[in-house]
């Protein structure tokens, strides 16, 4: 009789793609809830729009490619997760076509043109976000301040009206929504800090602004903490590896700590860098993408550290206020090379140099 012989690994994880994807989606829920609590319905509407588009696009491309089992691939959750991550990243009051163009680009160009799930070199959600950011800079930077700071009441009906017609039911424009009581346009904390530092103000003077709140960044800090909690759950459930987020956060911490110790007037605190923008979302939900990230343990540590450094450099010296998406794309490019040089030693084999020494 013949034995069935297979190469290693011999012990396979029985978890299906859909189970893993569903777990990641559940873990993102606290963050989405925090976004809803501080910024209103906008992101949820964008998530719904993106999910619809993504399913439609995925179905069209899969049927064009004559794939069997379309139903299974369509609902394996990967496309839906992409849509949710994209919807979370978008400014809450961006127009409706932003999320539709972004979601279609993510699925058709970034994911399916490269060969579908498991073959895409770039993270679809982040590539779509970068595409939108460089294509529509005005719409993609009109961030809405937290609800508590707004002078105009933004309920569900008003948000829908802004997203689909650019105006609230009372006729306020997006620009008016962003105006504070004093008549200033309010931006995100990162954006404000960057502009003010450029104007020669110190960090402490900038922090006086109401959008920074009492701690670091009003609203944003709680959104980031919620994503952090979701990320911890993912690590506890072993859905993602702990190396990438840890080295990313450490790297960002070290960079901002060095800058803060040298010149506290012109650089923000370490916790500000951790708790603003898309830091926690990037660390736990995007950099840990099993397809586009590194796969070896050492490789993950290197990718995380590289991403942290890039995010800090882009935030402080770059042209954009937040750099998570750009850093992730650059790391995606570097991932195959990093994996190449950090291959773990196979059991029973020696490292090349040692073997030569032994001879």
């Amino acid at each position: 009789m013949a034995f069935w012989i297979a190469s290693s690994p011999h012990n396979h994880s029985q978890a299906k793609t859909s189970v893993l994807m569903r777990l990641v989606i559940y873990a993102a829920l606290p963050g989405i809830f925090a976004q809803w609590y501080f910024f209103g319905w906008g992101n949820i509407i964008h998530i719904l729009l993106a999910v619809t588009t993504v399913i439609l696009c995925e179905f069209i491309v899969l049927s064009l490619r004559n794939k069997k089992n379309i139903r299974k691939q369509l609902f394996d959750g990967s496309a839906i997760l992409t849509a949710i991550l994209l919807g979370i990243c978008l400014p809450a009051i961006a127009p409706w076509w932003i999320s539709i163009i972004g979601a279609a680009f993510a699925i058709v160009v970034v994911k399916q043109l490269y060969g579908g799930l498991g073959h895409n070199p770039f993270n679809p959600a982040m590539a779509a976000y970068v595409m939108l950011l460089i294509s529509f800079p005005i719409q993609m930077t009109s961030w809405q301040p937290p609800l508590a700071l707004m002078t105009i009441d933004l309920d569900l009906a008003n948000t829908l009206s802004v997203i689909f017609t650019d105006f609230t039911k009372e006729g306020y424009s997006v620009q008016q929504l962003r105006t504070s009581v004093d008549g200033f346009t309010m931006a995100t904390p990162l954006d404000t800090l960057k502009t003010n530092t450029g104007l020669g103000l110190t960090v402490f003077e900038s922090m006086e602004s109401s959008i920074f709140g009492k701690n670091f960044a009003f609203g944003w800090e709680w959104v980031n903490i919620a994503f952090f909690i979701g990320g911890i759950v993912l690590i506890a459930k072993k859905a993602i590896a702990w190396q990438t987020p840890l080295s990313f956060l450490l790297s960002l911490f070290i960079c901002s700590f060095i800058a803060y110790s040298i010149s506290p007037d012109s650089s923000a605190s370490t916790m500000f860098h951790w708790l603003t923008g898309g830091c926690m979302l990037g660390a736990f939900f995007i950099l840990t993408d099993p397809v586009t990230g590194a796969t070896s343990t050492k490789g993950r540590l290197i990718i995380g550290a590289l991403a942290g450094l890039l995010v800090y450099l882009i935030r402080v010296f770059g042209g954009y206020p937040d750099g998570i998406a750009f850093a992730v794309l650059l790391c995606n490019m570097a991932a195959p090379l990093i994996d190449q040089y950090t291959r773990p030693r196979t059991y029973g084999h020696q490292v090349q140099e040692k073997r030569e020494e032994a001879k």
Partner: protein
Amino acid sequence: MSTKVEPELPTINDTTELTDAIAPDDAALDLAKQARKNEYKELAIQGLWKNNPGLVQLLGLCPLLAVTATVTNALGLGLATLLVLVCSNATISAIRHWVPKEIRIPIFVLIIAAFVTCVQLLMNAYTYGIYQSLGIFLPLIVTNCAIIGRAEAYASKNPIKQASFDGLMMGLGFALVLIVLGAIREVLGQGTLFDGANLLLGDWATVLRIEVFHLDSQFLLAILPPGAFIAMGFIIAFKNAIDAHIKKRQPKESDKAIERIRVNFDS
């Protein structure tokens, strides 16, 4: 496009049938004539479709991707490249017997550079607006691989007539790809076609401007270089899909040889 230049085959066939009665010299002449016509047809098909410099050879991608943000720019560069390609092919073919093999490349480059300078000065004089918007990519036609490639591969080995026809077809193929790419990017980017055509064609051309749809905000990706790469990829994929479709529809040549089992009854 290739249907335009198809030779009228029936007339040739008629003449060849008649030649039986006439002197054999004429028959040979007619056969040569037919062969030449076929050669021209082949050149046209090669330049416009099968061996298109932009889509198949992927030569001259630098100007192709850089200046195709609008149809007008694409048309300007396409015409300039076409003119240089025809002139350089004809000249190189005319002097092919006197060019030493060892230093042919510098000579080709010099000839091409001379024509590019002419075209550049002409555009500077008569279409200043387009001259400015093409910028560095107009003098850079000198380094366009499509031109030097045709000089090396075809013009330096063939007579003047064929060489200039080859230049015309290759140039047309290149210009067509430029225009298609420019049209896609212009429509996606700003929703117009032939915007600024008066810079190239004179003041009457202002009426050519078509507003396909109105965009409140430009789709910058289509105007920026990444959009050129993505659109180019889609055009190449579309061309390959058409080729695959044509190949599929052609009846398969049955090359199944009938095998006979030879039975030797004697043994």
